[in-house]
């Protein structure tokens, strides 16, 4: 056995003890000593003398011969595990079929390379039957003993499918096998095939079929079909369809049973449609009624599609039928309900139409009546107002004047209400036409602000005006109506800010102009207040006629509720809008936006007047705004004055403006500033009184509330040297007559030219129990003294004609001539300088009283000079 014969020498347990060189060459490996021949070549050789094994995908036939210590095993190369030839092996490999063999006695398992590959086992690893079972999905493991035992014992075909995880994926395998016997030995040989795709397809199909079936059952949809056999159509339907028509199971497929149930009225059209579909292949789609055997009428919807065979002939129809009786009943009920509702709506609409017509007629009559009565009332009211105006200019007592004022205010209020009513009627009747006149926005704003400035001040409301007029141009539009809107909204702001609960009373008016295009511009005026504010619900009904914010509003604040309604309608007519923002107890903002035409007529550009402006100290916010306004209208030269600066010469200017809110800085610069002609000082409203009194010789104005128009007017007025008498006329009750001059034989003489002082001193004397004669000047006083005997003379010093000093001199001269005792003469003077006192004493006056004369002082004088007079 030496030389070229490949052989192995083993012990009794078939463990390799030596290997011949030819065997090493044949197997291509020599590290085999100690290995089991059976394991190495994947075969069984312990009970047989020859077997075919496999090593590294090559097949070998082994022949076993016994020796003293074991066996000699001769190797012969062969092409396949089968001796029959290699074609079978190729076929099996190409079909990717795994092979296996299971020895029922030894439990030894043989697995081909493909089988090992399926199971994820390495080529040179030998597995036991138990290990093999463990690889299988746990739910399928029980199949193996069941099928293998039944096959071995009862010949039941060994054929089943199982799952296992291969390369991380779940896969399906089909196992087939059959029992083989050789002598006393029994094997089961078989194949293993990967059937994952087929199995998944079948599972998906089953799932889809089950799903469809469940859906059809849930929807109570019956299915029906017909196939063509020759010229005959064979019909079939499922149990659900049979149940819809309450047919017997044996009736399934008998078309006549179905036809018999069709409602006589529907039968012709249904059968014709079915016939048409079977002939032409068009879809069958019918709603029809059937009368069941128990007499019930059911409503059915049926639909079917026709199929063709390979020749293109219509050979089948498949469809569904649905019982819609319940839906039909519901629809019917709904239809009846709709009809009933429609009838009721029509009746109600007719009623409403009639009511509306009546209301419109009534409204028209009301409007006509209001219009007529307003006109009729206005005429006599104008007469009343005129008469009251004339009466107010007559000489009246204070009480009568009050009554005339009350009557006049009430009449004016009444005429305002009538005007509002007429406006509202006109607007509602579409008869109000807007005017188009050229106007200046600053003048309009100024008029509106001036109307309320005094009352705002009186009510403690700080009113601030900010105008942005840099781009302003003359406008064209209905100035009066725009003024009416602004007056109303600013008036409301004053009214609703002047309430007891409001602590911070501020109203701010912002005016802006924006050019929209070469023909149009937009004016935006926002009026914000810190008044009572409104809720959202109140805002929503704010512009409704005769509706005020709250029911209590009329009672608390007065008014008719017409104002904002008219404003809303007017702004609509003007193509603008009023935006209201408000918060209860915090205040409101009314923003009025109105478009106006630009006055594009040519006019000469007005040359700006030079204005020298001095800023003394820090520029306050409101003075900064004023300066901005001044720049719009004047050619401003600005000079800032502080403690470090010098009063350098400015370009010559007609007008001089000082902006300051620092009184000490003003005092510092006063000597230079008061030399400037036409000087006008603007300061913050809170400082205006202090400035006006401290710089009494200067014109001092508050910078708020101040409109651009007012600024220009004030600067212009400052240039006028003379005063206009009309500006210095205020009403006062007529003065009582002067105290009657003359003698009444009293022993005190009062010489005083000022009737007020005459009455005052006479009254004071009377209060002390004295009475006096009164002379109006020194000459009259001397005559009185000359013709009467007085115990005391009280005389003013400065009087026209003969003054107090002259009269005293004359009296003292006469007394000296006639040797009379000197009468006590008391000077009553407004001057209190020491020189004045010396003067009085030097000319013979005895004492003096300082005006105004207090009761205590006059009493002392009387005690001193009257009581002790001779």
């Amino acid at each position, binding site marked *: 056995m030496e030389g070229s014969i490949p052989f192995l020498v083993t012990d009794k347990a078939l463990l390799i003890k030596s290997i011949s060189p030819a065997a090493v060459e044949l197997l291509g490996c020599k590290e085999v000593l100690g290995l089991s021949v059976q394991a190495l070549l994947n075969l069984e050789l312990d009970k047989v003398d020859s077997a075919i094994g496999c090593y590294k995908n090559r097949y070998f036939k082994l022949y076993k011969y016994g020796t003293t210590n074991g066996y000699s095993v001769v190797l012969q190369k062969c092409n396949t595990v089968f001796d029959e030839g290699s074609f079978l092996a190729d076929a099996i490999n190409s079909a990717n079929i795994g092979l296996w063999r299971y020895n029922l006695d030894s439990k030894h398992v043989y697995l081909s390379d493909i089988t090992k590959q399926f199971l994820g086992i390495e080529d040179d690893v030998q597995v036991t039957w138990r290990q093999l079972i463990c690889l299988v999905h746990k739910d399928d493991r029980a199949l193996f003993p069941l099928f293998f035992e039944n096959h071995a014992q009862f010949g039941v075909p060994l054929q089943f499918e199982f799952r296992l995880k291969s390369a991380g994926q779940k896969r399906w395998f089909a196992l087939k096998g059959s029992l083989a016997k050789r002598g006393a030995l029994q094997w089961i040989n078989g194949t293993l095939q990967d059937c994952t795709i087929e199995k998944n397809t079948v599972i998906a199909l089953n799932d889809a079929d089950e799903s469809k079936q469940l859906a059809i059952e849930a929807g109570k949809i019956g299915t029906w079909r017909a196939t063509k056999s020759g010229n005959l159509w064979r019909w079939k339907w499922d149990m659900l369809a049979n149940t819809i028509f309450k047919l017997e199971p044996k009736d399934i497929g008998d078309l006549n049973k179905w036809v018999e149930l069709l409602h006589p009225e529907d039968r012709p059209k249904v059968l014709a449609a079915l016939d048409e579909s079977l002939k032409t292949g068009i879809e069958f789609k019918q709603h029809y009624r059937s009368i069941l055997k128990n007499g019930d009428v059911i409503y059915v919807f049926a639909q079917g599609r026709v199929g063709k065979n390979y020749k293109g002939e219509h050979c089948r129809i498949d469809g569904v039928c649905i019982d819609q009786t319940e839906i039909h009943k519901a629809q019917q009920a709904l239809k009846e309900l709709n009809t009933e509702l429609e009838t009721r709506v029509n009746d109600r609409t007719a009623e409403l139409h009639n009511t509306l017509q009546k209301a419109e007629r009534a409204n028209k009559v009301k409007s006509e009546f209001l219009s007529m009565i307003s006109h009729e009332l206005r005429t006599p009211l104008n007469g009343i107002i005129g008469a009251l105006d004339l009466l107010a200019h007559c000489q009246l007592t*204070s009480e009568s004047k009050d009554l005339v004022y009350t009557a006049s205010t009430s009449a004016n209020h009444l005429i305002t209400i009538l005007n509002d009513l007429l406006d509202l009627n006109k607007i509602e009747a579409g008869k109000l036409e807007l005017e188009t006149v050229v106007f200046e926005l600053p003048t309009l704003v100024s008029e509106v602000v001036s109307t309320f400035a005094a009352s705002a001040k009186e009510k403690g409301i700080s009113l601030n005006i900010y105008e942005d007029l840099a781009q302003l141009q003359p406008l064209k539009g209905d100035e009066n109506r725009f003024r009416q809107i602004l007056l109303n909204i600013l008036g409301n702001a004053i009214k609703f800010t002047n309430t007891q609960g409001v602590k911070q009373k501020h109203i701010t008016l912002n005016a802006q102009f924006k050019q929209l295009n070469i023909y149009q511009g937009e004016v935006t005026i926002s009026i914000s207040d810190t008044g009572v504010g409104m809720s959202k619900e109140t805002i929503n009904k704010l512009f409704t006629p005769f509706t005020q914010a709250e029911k209590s509003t009329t009672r608390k604040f007065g008014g008719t509720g017409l104002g904002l309604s008219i404003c809303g309608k007017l702004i609509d007519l003007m193509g603008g809008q009023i935006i209201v923002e408000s918060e209860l107890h915090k205040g409101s903002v009314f923003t009025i936006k109105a478009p106006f035409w630009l006055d594009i007529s040519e006019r000469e550009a007005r040359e700006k007047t030079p204005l020298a402006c001095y800023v003394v100290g820090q520029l306050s916010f409101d003075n900064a705004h004023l300066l901005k306004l001044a720049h719009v209208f004047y050619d401003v030269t600005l000079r800032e004055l502080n403690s470090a600066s010098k009063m350098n010469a400015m370009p010559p200017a007609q007008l001089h403006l000082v902006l300051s809110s620092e009184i000490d800085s003003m005092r510092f610069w006063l000597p230079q500033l*008061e030399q400037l*002609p036409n*000087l006008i000082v603007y300061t913050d409203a809170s400082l205006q*009184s*202090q400035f*006006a*009194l*401290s710089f*009494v*010789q*200067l*014109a001092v104005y508050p910078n708020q509330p101040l409109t651009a128009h007012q600024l220009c007017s004030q600067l212009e007025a400052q240039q006028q*040297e*003379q*005063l206009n*008498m009309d*500006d*210095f*006329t*205020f*009403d*006062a*009750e*007529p*003065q*009582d007559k002067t105290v009657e001059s003359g003698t009444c034989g009293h022993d005190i003489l009062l010489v005083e*030219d*000022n*009737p*007020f*002082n005459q*009455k*005052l001193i006479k*009254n*004071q004397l009377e*209060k002390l129990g004295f009475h006096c004669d009164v002379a109006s000047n020194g000459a009259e006083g001397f005559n009185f003294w000359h013709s009467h005997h007085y115990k005391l003379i009280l005389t003013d010093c*400065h009087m026209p004609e003969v003054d107090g000093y002259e009269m005293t001199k004359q009296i003292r001269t006469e007394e000296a001539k006639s040797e009379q005792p000197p009468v006590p003469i008391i000077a009553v003077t*407004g001057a209190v300088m020491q020189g004045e006192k010396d003067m009085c004493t030097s000319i013979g006056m005895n004492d003096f009283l300082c*005006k*105004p*004369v*207090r*009761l205590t002082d006059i009493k002392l004088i009387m005690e001193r000079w009257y009581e002790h007079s001779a």
Partner: protein
Amino acid sequence: MNTQPDELKTLNRETIIDLVGDEPDKIQKFHTEFLAQAATVLKTIVQSFNINDFGELKSQAHFLKTSARAVGAERSAYFLETIERYSLTKNKSAIKQIIIKLNGEFIAIKKELTNGEH
């Protein structure tokens, strides 16, 4: 006058009480009397101003000043005294401003008296 100008009152009601006692009817009569006199004298002052008669201007201011002091019209009295002073130097622009302020004071007194009555 020791009081600072900005501390002066438009109408100090205590002054007239010191002169005639706390008799409201009598006081009201004197207030009315004063306003009537002020309305008349103010016209004269304006006339004098417009014709630059500073002597008459001073005289009228002095005339009304004593009445103003008597009723407690402190600011008015201060303005009238200042007119007297500026009349001596014939400072017309200063006098103009003071007359304007004086007019405002009389209106304020009238308003205060009217409000006080109601």
